[in-house]
């Protein structure tokens, strides 16, 4: 068996030129194949299979792409399946395996162009190269750039992409499609209705189908369950006997009634919700003011008959909600009146408060004035007293200064007590002058 290194495999792969070869992986596989014939990387039946030392088989191309993207160094490449370290690749595999892969049937890659060929995979390349008439070829006129099916190529090598006007419908059709258009697709072509066999134009076929007496139609009551489908001509006789058609209007009426009832129910549900909300609100209010209950009960009886007559069709629950509504209404009235009287009282109180405020402020003001006057008197008295005290103090200050001067002259006397001793008797010797109130001005100038 031939064993080559990974490097050789990569070189081999890069040398092989497969540009114009059918991509076998993108083919549509018709016959089912065994999972063991499937390359674990591309999940297609093996294409040019190669084998690793660990006996795992891959497509050559898949293995090469796995090697080139392998994260670690190349000579540490491990088998993608079992992660065994692998050094070389065997290119030869049992003929049996290759045959099994090759005989799997595939569709022609030009199926979308109309080729219905299904062939073993090994032959599909030959089919595309030689026989497939739907393979797209470049237009013989190089400047055109469009493609043509192989079988549609002009034998003389003309470009078939020029527009040509249809003689029937006056539309512009490409040369290569003209034959098909003229014989099959043109809207102005005569055709026969498949039901009534009359011949009409192709473009009117749809309109005709709506009125053709031979075409099959369902019974008009099919939405109510009539399974019968008849030709339009026979449908009229069926309509006369079909019981479901006879009951049709009744069904309609029932449906309409159901709809209106559902609407009513929805409205009632909404109303109910509103009432329940209101009731809950009132309950909380009543819990806060329990004294209001008896009065509200008394008022509820007076207004209930008029309320109840408004809604004669109401059910039992509805009337309950109604009476509770009256109850809430009277309670609300009572609460409102209570609120009004309280508001009045509050108003009166606020008046009284403003009165009181005014009076109090007046009293405070007059008192203030009186106190101010008193203060002024006291101030005057205090200042006169201050003046007298100053006047009285003045001669003593003079005397003290004089005593200090005499003390300063006798610096030789060391005893500190001598000036005080001198001052002591001097104060006692100075006679207090008689108080003279009018002397204040003179004292000021002296100071």
């Amino acid at each position, binding site marked *: 068996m031939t064993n080559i290194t990974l490097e050789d495999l990569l070189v081999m792969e890069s040398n092989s030129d497969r540009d114009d070869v059918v991509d076998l992986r993108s083919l549509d596989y018709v016959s089912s194949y065994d999972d063991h014939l499937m390359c674990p990387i591309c999940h297609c039946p093996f294409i040019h299979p190669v084998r690793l030392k660990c006996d795992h088989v891959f497509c050559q191309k898949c293995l090469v792409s796995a090697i080139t993207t392998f*994260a670690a160094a190349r000579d540490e490449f491990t088998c993608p399946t079992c992660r065994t370290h692998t050094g070389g690749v065997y290119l030869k595999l049992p003929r049996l395996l290759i045959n099994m892969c090759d005989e799997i049937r595939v569709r022609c890659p030009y199926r979308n162009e109309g080729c219905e060929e299904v062939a073993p995979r090994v032959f599909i390349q030959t089919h595309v190269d030689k026989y497939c008439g739907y393979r797209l070829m470049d237009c013989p006129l190089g400047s055109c750039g469009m493609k043509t099916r192989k079988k549609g190529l002009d034998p003389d090598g003309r470009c078939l992409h020029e527009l040509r006007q249809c003689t029937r419908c006056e539309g512009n059709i490409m040369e290569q499609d003209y034959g098909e258009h003229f014989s099959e697709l043109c809207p102005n072509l005569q055709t026969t209705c498949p039901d009534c066999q009359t011949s009409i134009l192709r473009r009117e076929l749809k309109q005709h189908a709506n009125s053709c007496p031979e075409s099959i139609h369902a019974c008009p009551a099919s939405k109510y369950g009539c399974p019968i489908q008849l030709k339009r001509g026979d449908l009229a006789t069926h309509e006369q006997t079909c019981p479901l058609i006879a009951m049709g209007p009744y069904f309609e009426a029932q449906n309409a009634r159901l709809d209106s009832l559902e609407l009513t129910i929805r409205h009632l549900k909404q109303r109910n919700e509103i009432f329940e909300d209101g009731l809950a609100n009132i309950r909380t209010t009543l819990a806060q003011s329990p004294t209001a209950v008896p009065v509200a009960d008394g008022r509820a009886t007076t207004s209930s008959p008029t309320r109840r007559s408004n809604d004669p069709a109401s059910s039992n629950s509805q009337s309950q909600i109604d009476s509770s509504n009256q109850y809430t209404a009277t309670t609300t009235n009572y609460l409102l009146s209570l609120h009004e009287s309280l508001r009045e009282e509050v108003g009166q109180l606020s008046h009284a408060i403003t009165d009181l405020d005014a009076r109090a402020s007046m009293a405070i003001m007059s008192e203030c004035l009186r106190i101010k006057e008193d203060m002024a008197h006291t101030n005057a008295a205090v200042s006169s007293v201050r003046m007298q005290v100053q006047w009285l103090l003045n001669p003593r200050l003079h005397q003290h200064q004089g005593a200090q001067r005499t003390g300063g002259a006798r610096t030789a006397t060391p005893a500190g007590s001598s000036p005080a001793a001198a001052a002591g008797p001097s104060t006692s010797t100075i006679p207090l002058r008689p108080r003279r109130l009018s002397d204040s001005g003179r004292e000021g100038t002296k100071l």
Partner: protein
Amino acid sequence: MFATKRLSKELIKIKEHLPPGISIVKSDTLEEWLMDIKVLDENPLYLNQTYRLKFTFNNKYPIEVQFIELPTTSDTPRPIPIHPHIYSNGIICLDLLSSAGWSPVQTVESVCMSIQSMLTANSRNERPPGDQDFVSYNRRRPRDINFMYDDDNV
């Protein structure tokens, strides 16, 4: 082309058959799939829980690893399973989800089964060490993070 072909083949197979406890939730595009997994045994950590896995594929799949996480935000919020190798932002520390450990033979189904068995085998009720730091600082994709795969028991 390669990736979409391979994914559509996987999708056909998945829709035919899936192992118990694994179900496909969303596969509208061939770029992002959502899978639900359940732990089937009586493990009290994961009892009666369903976890969602998000697969994000690029056009190199299956040659390159795809982006697999437990999404934290989705229409129907699913819990992040408690596990010493699953961060609370939904990133799973599992070697086969990294570039180094990924193998192109892995499929969506096999990855789901691996995570399912990883949960089944766990008995520790804890998050990975440093979970809070990782959750608040990580902005990288899981396949670019250099995890240390030190625990062979799970």
